[in-house]
């Protein structure tokens, strides 16, 4: 991981509150793996004070892509940056998804809720490279909340979509769509990223069917480098439950290790 104080914003694409940034950051781009994240300083001043964690949405030797939704102050400021602007980032950070967990020829489900789809695009491309078969399940509140559809389609991946309001695809939460798909087909692995309630429900559904999962967790992060102990989640290991730093051991954890409140 490196500190890139003046990475450059190359390209901006936006859909309402959703933004895709293409950033020139060779070192980070070369190193990044799916499920890892970067910490971005959105302002030069002291408010907001802390960096913001964003998952790596795509990466190549020139740099990396981010895909984010404006959630508040920090992402709001970030969203107003223009091509050519400086981006101050640290990364890639954390432990990502285990691409190798899905053998050549086998199917993997990639379940993304809302902004949680961000890292799954990168993961899908990597899975395709290894000869695995990613099936993308992409859910959002409504049609306007699943803007990455076309981007997936352009790569030949046909995401199966769900919207809570039924405005597009399956009407209902993406977890229900996942349950239906699981009745049709049993993947080698389920990779998921999204809000806690979705992850919790999905973990239960997968466990019932004995399908292994990898879940990318979220938390407010003070540092992203394992120093503040602010980003903990309840995680199981041999010795039982404990508060584990998700920036360091995660953000991706095997579903069976994650305990839910």
């Amino acid at each position, binding site marked *: *991981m490196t*500190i890139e104080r003046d990475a450059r914003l190359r390209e901006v694409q936006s859909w309402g509150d959703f933004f895709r940034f293409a950033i020139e950051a060779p070192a980070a781009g070369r190193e990044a793996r799916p499920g890892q994240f970067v910490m971005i*300083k959105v302002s030069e001043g*002291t*408010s*907001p*004070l*802390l*960096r913001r964690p964003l998952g790596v949405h795509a990466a190549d030797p020139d740099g990396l892509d981010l895909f984010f939704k404006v959630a508040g102050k920090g992402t709001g400021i970030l969203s107003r940056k223009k091509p050519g602007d400086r981006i101050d980032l*640290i990364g890639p950070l954390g432990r990502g998804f285990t691409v190798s967990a899905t053998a050549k020829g086998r199917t993997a489900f990639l379940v993304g809720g809302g902004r949680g789809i961000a890292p799954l695009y990168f993961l899908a491309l990597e899975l395709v490279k290894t000869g695995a078969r990613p099936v993308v399940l992409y859910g959002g509140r409504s049609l306007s909340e699943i803007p990455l559809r076309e981007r997936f389609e352009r790569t030949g991946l046909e995401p199966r979509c769900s919207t809570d309001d039924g405005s597009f695809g399956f009407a209902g939460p993406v977890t229900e769509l996942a349950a239906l798909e699981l009745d049709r087909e049993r993947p080698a692995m389920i990779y998921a990223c999204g809000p806690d309630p979705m992850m919790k429900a999905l973990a239960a559904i997968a466990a019932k069917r004995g399908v292994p999962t990898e879940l990318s967790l979220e*938390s*407010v*992060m*003070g*540092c992203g*480098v*394992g*120093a*503040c*102990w*602010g*980003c*903990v*989640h309840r995680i199981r290991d041999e010795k039982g439950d*404990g*508060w584990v730093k998700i920036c*360091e051991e995660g953000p991706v954890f095997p579903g069976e290790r994650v305990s839910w409140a």
Partner: protein
Amino acid sequence: MGVKGAGVDLTTDLGFLKLRNPVLTASGTFGYGLEFEPYLDLSRLGGIVVKGLYYGPREGNPPPRLVETASGLINAIGLQGVGVEAFAAKVLPQLHRIDTAVIVNVCGADDDEYAAVVEFLDRHEGIAAYELNISCPNVKKDGACPALRPQTTYDLVKRIKAASRRPVITKLSPNVTSIVEIAQAAEEAGTDALALINTLLAMAVDLETRRPKLANVYGGLSGPAIKPVALRMVHQVASRVRVPVIGLGGIMSGADALEFLVAGAAAVEVGTASFVDPDAAARVVDEIARWCEARGVAAVRDVVGTIEIP
């Protein structure tokens, strides 16, 4: 001299401890030090104050543990940590290879635990001093801690000085009516130095859920927001005690650090800044050196306590 500022003498003598430069990392904001090796050369720092240690391992508080405020950060980590045994077995050996002063931030639920921690660590090498954290606001109700009263401060410091073979830096709380009274109590009890300030007891409310934003309800405020309070307390204390004062609170730059030195601090600690920039402490060292060089200041010690009150 190649590097700008390389000609400036940054060495800092606390009497009981000589430092390469006056910049330490603040406890709890720099992990056990090793987390930062990818980002800076730890041997360029004056020293590392490691995360607060209780005798046994600690769970810490449930999340959310952090909330950002205007130019500040409230934390209620609750001192999650590995405990002295794991620290001595796993962390200390790795710190040996780093050529910088290692200071251990000592915590305890009561005076006995503080004593037990130093007695245990006294049996291990590679520790330059103890920083007695008598001021953590995140473990007891309403931020209660020994640093809130002169007597409890005196008793604990006295006890630890007697128990320990190493120098003791007492870290004070800003949540008091008279920081000078507390500082003088610690001095009378024989502390070798003072470090101030710890965090300000604070709270944030989530308006939509009508709940505290921190699971622990209250937490400790740090960052640039508290710098003016920290500077005031360092200035009040430095002129009224004989032991060296280590200043901290909101230091983000070399200029911030120099303001503390001018106000009377013999050294400084960089805290929350390391979250924003993992290499902040090393940058502060460079900025101090460059400032001194540009002003023709030969040794940084010549800046300490030079504030002029008109």
